[in-house]
């Protein structure tokens, strides 16, 4: 204590100077990092709604922040007009026929806005120019005309495969002609196709992990953790495979002759068939969810890892459903065709996918 009293002034001096140094240093770093004194160019944007928008929402291009929303307001057409600034360094990224893709994080309620650059990098948009969001007609036109591309290629191809799978699963929309066995055969087919798809995904992601080239796969590099993502997708593949192996088992269970007894005992299917029917509807729903997942995956790159987690839950549900069917003693009978076919594979397929 006496030492402290003897050197009180020196200790206090160092104690305070270090703190002031930290404070001034951080203020300088913020000024540099946030380019406070760098010239900024103002552009206008228009969105369908203000969900998740805030005055500091970043505008990203290839996952990199190039500007921020500064203000926004509701206009007379009931859409949202916003101003955003872009620092001088990235001013040339804002070209004509560019669009904005606003993706909302369902958990945090915050949005990320991705700049979808127009086709001609030479046609720089003058300051104050309007860039529409692709959720309003002007933005959709850009998409339809192919002036902007919404997503990365690899995900798109994955979606195509998944869509095909879902189409296969849902091709039989005729309630009367669609017997259960046919549905299950389709499911078995789907299993094979899905296996192939997932193999393909696995291979693709392996490639991604090895990818060192900064020009390729930029969309994925924007993700926080690439390795985690691949691991999660591989786990997902394994889950799907498991589910579908169970589907095969289920199919052989239907071939069991014991089922006829049950059919005789329940000719109208009130007691046994309907519950099973429900279960199968659940299965279909689960697969639909998987389809949705992959579409969503395609749209929401920054939230990808979160969505995959959601997908894992969906597939886990599918797996449980199939397990339920397999373990159900009533399964040893026939099931009429599915009552309703909710899945419309084509609807799930994004228009822009290649």
């Amino acid at each position, binding site marked *: 204590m006496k030492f402290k009293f003897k050197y009180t002034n020196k200790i206090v001096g160092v104690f305070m100077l270090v703190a002031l140094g930290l404070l001034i240093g951080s203020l300088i770093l913020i000024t540099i990092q946030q380019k406070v004194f760098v010239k900024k160019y103002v552009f206008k944007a228009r969105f369908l709604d203000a969900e998740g928008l805030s005055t500091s929402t970043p505008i990203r291009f290839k996952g990199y922040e190039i500007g921020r929303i500064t203000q926004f307001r509701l206009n007379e057409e009931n859409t949202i007009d916003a101003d955003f600034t872009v620092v001088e360094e990235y001013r040339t990224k804002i070209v004509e026929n560019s669009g904005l893709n606003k993706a909302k994080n369902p958990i*945090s309620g915050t949005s990320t806005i991705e700049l979808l650059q127009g086709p001609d990098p030479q046609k720089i948009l003058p300051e104050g120019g309007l860039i529409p969001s692709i959720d309003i007609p002007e933005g959709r036109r850009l998409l339809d005309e192919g002036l902007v591309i919404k997503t990365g290629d690899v995900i798109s191809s994955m979606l195509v495969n998944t869509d095909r799978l879902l189409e296969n699963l849902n091709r039989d929309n005729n309630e009367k002609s669609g017997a259960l066995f046919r549905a299950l055969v389709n499911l078995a087919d789907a299993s094979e196709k899905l296996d192939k798809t997932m193999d393909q995904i696995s291979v693709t992601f392996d490639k991604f992990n090895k990818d060192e080239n900064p020009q390729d796969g930029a969309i994925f590099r924007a993700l926080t953790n690439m390795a985690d993502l691949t691991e999660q997708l591989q786990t997902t593949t394994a889950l799907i495979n498991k589910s579908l192996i169970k589907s095969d088992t289920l199919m052989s269970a239907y071939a069991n002759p014991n089922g006829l007894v049950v059919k005789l005992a329940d000719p109208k299917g009130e007691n046994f068939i309907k519950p099973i029917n429900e279960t199968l509807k659940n299965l279909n729903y689960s697969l639909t969810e998987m389809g949705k997942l992959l579409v969503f995956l395609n749209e929401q790159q920054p939230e990808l*890892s979160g969505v995959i987690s959601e997908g894992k839950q969906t597939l886990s549900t599918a797996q449980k459903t199939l397990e339920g069917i397999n373990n159900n003693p009533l399964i040893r009978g026939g099931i009429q065709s599915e009552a309703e076919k909710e899945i419309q594979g084509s609807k799930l397929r994004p228009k822009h996918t290649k």
Partner: protein
Amino acid sequence: MPARIAESIGDNLLEKAAGTREFLQFFGEAIRQMFLFSRQSQVATLVLMRQILFTGFEALTLISLIAAAIGGIIIIEGHLMLGDFGSGQLLYVILVTVIVRELSSLLVAFIIIARSGTAISTELGNMVVNHEIEALQSIGISPISYLVVPRVFGVVAAMFTLTIYFTVAGLLGGWAVSYFFFPIGLEDFFFRLLNELAVVDIFSSFTKSIVFGFAVGTIACYQGMKVAFATTEVPQRTIKSVVQSLTWVIILDILITMVFYVL
């Protein structure tokens, strides 16, 4: 009966009014003496330096540990809450909002109330009982200028400085824990953090620390000086000092947050 209740309420109100008037007089004199501080700096600088040493430097280890632990806990809780849901950048927002804007100044204030506010009240209370205040008066030194002003300045300076250390330690703690979930270099971490950090966050945090320091220092000194004769009054006054300080810190926190972020 109703007359007695009314009388009791009336007495209570009068007492409160007298107490408030007394505090305002004390506060006014303290403010006046603050402007005259340079004139008494020769005798009061020692008190000021020791106050910063005691309130600031000696609390540094405690504050840093608490801050680092809280930074870590916020990341763990945040991670548990957000799961895998694309929480990367969100963690920085949480750290900035919770540590820089809110917790740094508030927790430092709480620790200073518990550690130094009580010490100041007790010390001044005992000084009154031991006639030390009268000794100062007899010399001609104003107890407010010699005892109160440097203590208030000391608490303000210590609170301000500790808030900086708390913020840094909290963010470092956050980084250390987040490293388990999202392995990321310290430099990268701080640059991402700086992206989320606005100058207004820093200003609001330090405005709070200065105002809280002022409130805690003044209340602790006032309660200490209010001891009249007996040592038994000292703990009573110390408790009052803690309760009033906590109340005012929270009220001021709400007001300052509203000024910076709502209005």
